[in-house]
């Protein structure tokens, strides 16, 4: 008997401040779930970061709940793990609430074997007999420690079709642009599973591991300009449908896109501000913008004039008038020779932030008078190198969060402080 399941990850429902992109993201998720029902999959696996945060805005939650409910009514079980975004160490999370309502089945259930070892409960899908277990993602790739403690032996005897769900980047498999992200070695994945359903990495990949497959579907839409640029270039977005009996029989990627995305970099190097201005205007007038998301990046060092001399509004207006659903023209990559020193250049806002954090953190040194190895290790993991950059980015994203409707100031403050403390992992410091 051949069954089939859907594997998707990184829906990040609730992401985006731009309302159009936020809507596109949710739409992508709805399309994926509709397709799952059409295809009559036996179950669905979500490999983490279903929501953008532990407590996303209520409109988004409402849209997600509705779809989950339809899927459930169609007799399809949805298995899920937490990702690095939608879990909170100190607060309740929406995933947990929806699980209580029976819309999800969370497949990470750790059991302590001894002080240094854990194992994970293996769930059996009633309809297909598939065995499913998994390891949730945590902020700062904290789950790596859990993986180190994970007893591989305890899965040795499992038979049948076995799925391991995880939300981590793997050193050996990650793409070049994630070279600086925290990640873990392949050898921490327990061997012997038929299918490793991965999440966290926003690009798609399929790899062999023993007799099994490690598959990352990538995000379904994306959460930042970089993701969308990748979509515009070559990266296909969507999810996998996997047919199996005791092994994978067929692996099919279903491409889905709620809208077309166009990304363009205009080279500003050695050009004057007015030359770039006309290049931008000319480009804007030459493209068929209808129904598309348009991302334009101005990049390079101007030979004369300042970035502020370039007015992006005419191009924006024109593209909007021609039917573009959202336009983003970025000047972050522009520099000028007129200013003596530019501290940081980057392509997107996020990259600039990241570079700045890196620069500052490079100067940070651990106080040599701290002798306790455990404290040293804790602090250096948290602050030095990639850990520090991630933490800084996480903190900024927590602090950026807006007050929610119906949320009193006091509650809002409490939530932000709580989230920030969670990112600082104060609960780990016993």
């Amino acid at each position, binding site marked *: 008997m051949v069954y089939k399941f859907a594997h998707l990850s990184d829906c990040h429902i609730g992401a985006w401040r731009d309302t159009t992109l936020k809507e596109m993201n949710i739409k992508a998720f709805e399309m994926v779930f509709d397709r799952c029902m059409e295809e009559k999959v036996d179950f669905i696996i979500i490999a983490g970061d279903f929501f953008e945060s532990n407590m996303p805005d209520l409109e988004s939650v409402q849209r997600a709940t509705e779809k989950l409910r339809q899927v459930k009514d169609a007799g399809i079980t949805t298995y899920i793990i937490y990702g690095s975004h939608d879990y909170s160490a100190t607060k309740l999370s929406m995933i947990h609430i929806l699980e209580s309502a029976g819309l999800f089945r969370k497949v990470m259930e750790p059991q302590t074997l001894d002080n240094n070892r854990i194992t994970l409960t293996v769930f059996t899908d009633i309809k297909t007999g598939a065995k499913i277990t998994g390891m949730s993602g945590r902020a700062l790739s904290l789950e790596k420690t859990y993986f180190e403690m994970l007893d591989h032996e305890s899965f040795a005897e499992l038979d049948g079709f076995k799925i391991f769900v995880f939300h981590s980047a793997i*050193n*050996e*498999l*990650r793409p070049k642009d994630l*070279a600086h992200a925290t990640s873990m*070695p392949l050898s921490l994945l327990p061997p012997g599973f038929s299918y490793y359903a991965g999440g966290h990495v926003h690009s798609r990949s399929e790899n062999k591991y023993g007799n099994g497959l490690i598959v990352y579907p990538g995000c379904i839409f994306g959460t930042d300009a970089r993701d969308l640029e990748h979509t515009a270039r070559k990266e296909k977005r969507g999810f996998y449908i996997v047919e199996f009996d005791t092994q994978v029989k067929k692996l099919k990627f279903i491409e889905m896109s709620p809208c077309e995305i166009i990304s363009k970099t205009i080279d500003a190097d050695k050009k004057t501000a007015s030359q770039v201005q006309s290049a931008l205007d000319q480009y804007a007038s030459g493209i068929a913008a209808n129904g598309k998301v348009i991302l334009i990046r101005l990049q390079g060092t101007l030979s004369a004039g300042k970035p502020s001399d370039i007015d992006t509004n005419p191009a924006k207006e024109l593209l909007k008038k021609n039917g573009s659903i959202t336009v983003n023209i970025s000047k972050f990559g522009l520099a000028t020779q007129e200013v003596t020193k530019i501290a940081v250049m980057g392509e997107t806002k996020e990259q600039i932030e990241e570079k700045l954090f890196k620069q500052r953190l490079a100067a940070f040194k651990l106080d040599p008078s701290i002798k306790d190895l455990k404290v040293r290790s804790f602090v250096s993991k948290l602050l030095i190198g990639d850990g520090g950059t991630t933490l800084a980015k996480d903190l900024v994203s927590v602090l950026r969060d807006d007050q929610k409707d119906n949320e009193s100031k006091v509650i809002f403050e409490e939530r932000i402080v709580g989230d920030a403390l969670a990112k600082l992992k104060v609960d780990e410091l016993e």
Partner: protein
Amino acid sequence: MQDLEIVGQVIAGDIANILVREKSGKKLELGDLLVAEEGDSRLLILKVYGLVYGSQVPQLAREMASGLKLEGLGAGLDYFEPHLRNYVIAEVKAIAQVINNKARIPKSLPTFFSAIRHIKKEDLAFLTKPDNPIFFGNVRSGSKVLDVPVFLNGSDVFTHHVLIPATTGRGKSNLVKVLLWNALGSGGKFGILVLDPHDEYYGRHGKGLKDHPSAKQDLVYFSTTPVKAANTLVINLQSIKPWYFDGIVRFTDAQNDAIDQYYNAFNDTWIENVIRDTPLPNGVTIAPRTLGVLRRKFDSVLGIYLDDADQLQCRSKIFSDNSGETTMQDIINSLEAGKIVVIDTSRLLDQAELLIGSIIVGDIFSRYQKYKSDGRLNDKPVISIVIEEAPRVLGTNVLESSGDNIYNTIAREGRKFKVGLTAITQLTSVIPKTVLTNINTKIILGNEMSVERRAVMDSASQDLSDEDRTIASLDKGEAIISSSFVKFAIPIQIPLIDEIIAEDNEPQNSPKRRVVG
């Protein structure tokens, strides 16, 4: 000096060979360190290079006396006060003069008739702990180990290159383990790359570097067959630049030309395109034979070939066209973060191992060159590259037949960029003198081959011409450090790594972890 301490007295000789009469029963040994006190806070450190008999009794008389005894004719016959008439003369040489706790090269003889004693801990108080200390072992006087640890400034030593010459079984690997163990505890001061063809450093099967308390943060292990939590050694073909083959694989001019063409046309995917026989876009054609030979070379060195389904395959699984994209960066970032990176190359063919070494070393070197020109080199940890059987890359014949390679370049100019070599070898004599003299620190272990001893001594920072016999007789773990960073060639005893591991690993209770999610 107290009478009890006296072991002998200077009686004759010259600056190169001072003769000391041994006090009876003191049993001086080859290699013993002795001291002649020269007044307040001045002393000379002497080392024993030879031992001969001395006697007041003429040779003929001694032969006669012995004959009588041996043939049973002189049962009661004995010398009157024998210890006064027959004794031992030690041939010694001053190796250091200490004035006010500062050591310098000795330029004078000890006072005639001055009394001599064994060296004491206090005499060596000038051996202080420098910045960036790396522990090498304890000072050794003959075969007696003193309670005086020898630390050298790791930054100096590693950047100015280290040579570890010895025949098999004399403790080279143990020494490297000791050095790495100590570097691990240094809090990220040294980024050390270890190409490990015997997979003996990490401790896959027994004790090893993985047992260091800082191993989790500061040790990174790559293997083609990784243990749990180790990294897989898989390198994306796109990380391989044409010049990495320099000095490792020989190409003809025609082949080099073809490589250049493909690299210019396809950049990082040049190897894949050579293997797939992709036509060059600019209309240039390459003789099919040349490409054929290149493909065969890639097959034999990298194990890369096209299967029936036109998929790129790698026999050894080390090279890949779809994974390992960040492996090189991971390794180099780890080194730059002051970690120790051990690469198990035990399952690789020689050339593949050298190539991987060359890729990593080339990348880190060019990164450090860039840091230097950006003025950022000061903040970076020192890099050392540990290479076993160094003549494979530094041998005269290799350098002559395949030309310069990255290791040779680093031997010559790495020091300016804080990148050094730690070269391990059984055969010093096949490494060119120009390279050997660039290697500042030599940790000389036992060696029974005189050609090899000669090559080591000839390139040492101190005059070791009298040490030939000592080096030949060094036991396991006994060594002599010769370096411009020490005032004299220091005899040391290197500890056994197993003992250090046991000492540093007092069991401790780890806190209970809460696992959630």
